[in-house]
């Protein structure tokens, strides 16, 4: 079935098309209006003395603020680690053929998604008072080891547990959706090659699920960074608590709120950029790759390949 290419006349390529592109005058109008509004806003920010910018900059890199920032970042990282690891475990349990595992996983998500995270944080920090000591032993039987929970669960750990256990419930749903998004044929092909369940999950299904899991996980991380400010109610000295303390001593409430907001913005921006690169890494082998770094697009540096 060979075609006789010698019979086909070679045609010259015509000149490349040169055409006047469609004009979009309204885009320019909209851009101009927004630009003017933005300029007015910035002008107000800079010139209105009520913002007290000098107070913001004076405290911006102070030791208390930086220490608070570190606590905020530690809380975010630890809570997300617990959330992701436990979330994967709960998701896998939920999809397990064992009805008890699946049921326990369902209950977990039901409970931790059904109660406010603020309540959970306060709960964990009060745990020391609820249980004077934690005991290891047979329920209702003899006890072997005693822990003084006041030292076992210091307040910081309470905050991490409150945030992390809550996050795990949400992450489990994200991971479950990711796992379900992977074509069943993948598992079948791996099974037919003689791979076992755990290995199929780790090497075949989860890497493909990542494409679906990562974008919402990025959102969860960004959201977690801000949610950590709730620990102010149990007096963990995170960024928000610290700026509040400074404000109550120097009575510059608005500048301190602005200061905290700027730091939160800086770190959420960093996280968004990180998210972009991780997404790109996990889209290997897929057709739908993401469409360029939004920051790079906005500021005109770098191009999506």
């Amino acid at each position: 079935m060979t075609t006789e290419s010698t019979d086909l006349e070679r045609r010259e390529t015509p000149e490349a098309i040169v055409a006047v592109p469609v004009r979009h005058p309204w885009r320019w109008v909209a851009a101009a209006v927004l630009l003017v509004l933005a300029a007015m806003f910035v002008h107000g920010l800079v010139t209105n003395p009520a913002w007290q910018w000098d107070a913001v900059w004076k405290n911006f890199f102070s030791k208390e603020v930086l220490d608070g920032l570190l606590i905020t970042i530690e809380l975010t990282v630890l809570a997300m680690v617990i959330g992701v690891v436990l979330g994967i475990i709960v998701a896998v349990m939920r999809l397990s053929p064992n009805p008890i595992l699946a049921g326990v996983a369902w209950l977990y998500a039901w409970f931790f998604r059904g109660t406010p995270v603020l309540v959970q944080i306060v709960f964990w920090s009060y745990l020391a008072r609820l249980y004077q000591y934690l005991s290891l032993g047979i329920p209702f039987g003899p006890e072997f080891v005693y822990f003084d929970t006041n030292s076992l669960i210091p307040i910081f750990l309470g905050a991490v547990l409150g945030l992390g256990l809550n996050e795990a419930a949400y992450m489990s749903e994200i991971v479950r959706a990711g796992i379900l998004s992977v074509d069943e044929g993948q598992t079948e092909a791996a099974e037919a090659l003689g791979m076992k369940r755990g290995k199929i999950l780790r090497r075949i299904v989860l890497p493909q699920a990542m494409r679906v899991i990562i974008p919402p996980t990025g959102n969860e991380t960004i959201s977690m960074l801000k949610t950590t400010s709730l620990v102010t109610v149990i007096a963990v000295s995170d960024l928000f608590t610290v700026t509040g303390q400074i404000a109550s001593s120097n009575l510059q409430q608005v500048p301190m709120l602005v200061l905290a907001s700027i730091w939160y913005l800086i770190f959420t921006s960093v996280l968004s950029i990180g998210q972009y690169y991780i997404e790109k890494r996990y889209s290997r082998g897929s057709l739908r790759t993401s469409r360029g770094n939004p920051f790079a697009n906005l500021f005109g540096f770098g191009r999506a390949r």
Partner: protein
Amino acid sequence: MSADLMVKAENVHKHFGRLEVLKGIDLEVAPGEVMCVIGPSGSGKSTFLRCINHLEKLTAGKLWVDGELVGYRQKGDKLYELRDDEVARKRREIGMVFQRFNLFPHMCVIDNIIEAPTQVKGVPKGQARERARELLDQVGLADKERAYPRELSGGQQQRVAIARALAMDPKLMLFDEPTSALDPELVGDVLEVMRNLATAGMTMIVVTHEMGFAREVGDSLVFMDGGVIVEHGAPKDVIANPQHERTQSFLSKVL
């Protein structure tokens, strides 16, 4: 018993809930035999193939591969279910090729091929790669080892899938309509690879509608309909001289 047969099925039944899909299949496949299976859609061809490597559990009857019971261990007259890892171990010896290829899209071609040998059998990576290159050469894709599946045509993907199955050195290959998802001009390359495999002595069960392949390469031809084997014989005889009316009407549609 039946140690000299590669596959032996004895009154195999399979139900999905109320739906009875296989209604008593008896079949024997000798080592080195190429058996082609044809039949209308929904007749249970895929289900039977999947029973052979225990992707589906039998409801009743018995099935042996290379003299060993599939999915169970027999002690006295009692059957014991095999554990997951025992089932997995047996599957290593049976290669399967799917209609929709099912390559792992997050791995390049050579990683697809070495995945099972390195992860399941513990073959060292270097050695597995060497073998993978041989296999790629064998299926005519020596230059594609770094490509990702989506960068390949359907026919190329299916040939990689065949190489992936062969990398486990199976003693039996199952093909479930390996060419039905392909454009007509890509079918030939895949059939060529399968033909070479048959010539090299591989035992194969091939569900296919490629009657040319069945006639020229197949040692036997099975016609299934409604969960039973209606006709079984030498391909030339079944095609040229079908005994049953159902076979005749099916063949008149595909030939």
